[in-house]
């Protein structure tokens, strides 16, 4: 069906001209069943309207750059197939809960600051020289944190989280999941250093367990699980004196 077409409605916002975002429709060819929403946006940019702005990079669900809201659901546009929406129109809007810089591009600054605040790296009380060898782990020890290490920082979980939408002070799903990833890592000794951030009232306790963060995650990470388990762990650490020791 060479004549097959699909309507893409994309958010347009020029900070120098517009006071608020608006939707613009594009009727484009849909010749290939393997086309994804990102392909449609690239077609529009290449053949219809070169001014359309959006982020993308790898096209294979790894970089996490092309997260947008597709028909109301946060998705990686490189993994959202047009065939799942055709013959209906596809409405592409920026990720919810973030300030819009231009068109489909959102301001990631708040997310980046939150990510940095949980110190997402292995913290050791005392660094050993390289000659001391590797920090060896068993497969079970890796299994403890592996799931939470799959996050690609696509921010879909923040866009799906109404708690973050209502209160931007909330540390948010990805940052907490990443904190848990390091806290569960047998090589890490930084739990106490991360505690003031994750156990803060704007940390895990702000979450009321909507759970949509885990539903939209494209990599199968379960941030809601990380948050609830962190709540339990921090409570146990608070109640039991020996829990405060590392």
């Amino acid at each position: 069906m060479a004549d097959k077409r699909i309507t893409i409605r994309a958010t347009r916002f020029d900070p120098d001209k517009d006071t608020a975002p608006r939707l613009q429709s594009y009727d484009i060819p849909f010749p290939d069943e393997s086309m994804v929403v990102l392909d449609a946006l690239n077609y529009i940019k290449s053949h219809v309207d070169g001014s359309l702005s959006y982020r993308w990079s790898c096209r294979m669900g790894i970089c996490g750059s092309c997260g947008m809201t597709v028909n109301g659901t946060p998705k990686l546009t490189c993994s959202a197939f047009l065939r799942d929406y055709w013959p209906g129109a596809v409405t592409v809007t920026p990720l919810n809960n973030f300030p819009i810089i231009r068109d489909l591009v959102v301001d990631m600054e708040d997310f980046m600051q939150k990510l940095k605040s949980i110190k997402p790296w292995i913290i050791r009380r005392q660094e050993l020289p390289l000659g001391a060898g590797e920090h060896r782990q068993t497969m079970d020890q890796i299994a403890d944190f592996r799931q939470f290490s799959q996050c690609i920082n696509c921010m879909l979980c923040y866009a799906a989280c109404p708690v973050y939408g209502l209160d931007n002070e909330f540390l948010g799903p990805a940052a907490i999941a990443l904190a848990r990833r390091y806290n569960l890592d047998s090589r890490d000794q930084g739990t106490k250093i991360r505690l003031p951030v994750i156990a803060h009232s704007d940390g895990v306790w702000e979450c009321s367990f909507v759970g949509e963060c885990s539903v939209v995650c494209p990599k199968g990470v379960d941030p809601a699980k990380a948050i609830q388990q962190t709540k339990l762990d921090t409570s146990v650490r608070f109640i039991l004196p020996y829990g405060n020791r590392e």
Partner: protein
Amino acid sequence: MTAEADTAHARTRTYKPAMPAGWWLRKRHYFLYMVREFTALPLALWLLWLLFEIYRAGRGASHFYAPSSTPFVIFSVICLLFALYHSFTFLRLAGVILHFKVMDKPVPSALIVASQFGAWLVASIVIGAVLIGFGR
């Protein structure tokens, strides 16, 4: 943030969409979440009423009468349904929250959830038996 980046950031005018009041109607998942949270309200109302009944019973038999009006029965049945839904969702989530290991192997979530429902059933039977026993 460096001074240069700060200036560039300040120059960029962004648009921050407000969260609509009806956000919880946008998705089925959000709606069910709100229902789950709301179920605590009729539960609390019913418990407040129970406290009031205990207070009345404490003032002597002359002040107490068993509530059996149709509106009250309907209200209680509705509260019971909310309580069951609240308990169901709460116990189902236990598999996500609880995590522990037995002999260095993590206990499967399904087993944790099953144990919670089992404990709920046993507790309900025991409490029911005690109440019926005292009622006779």
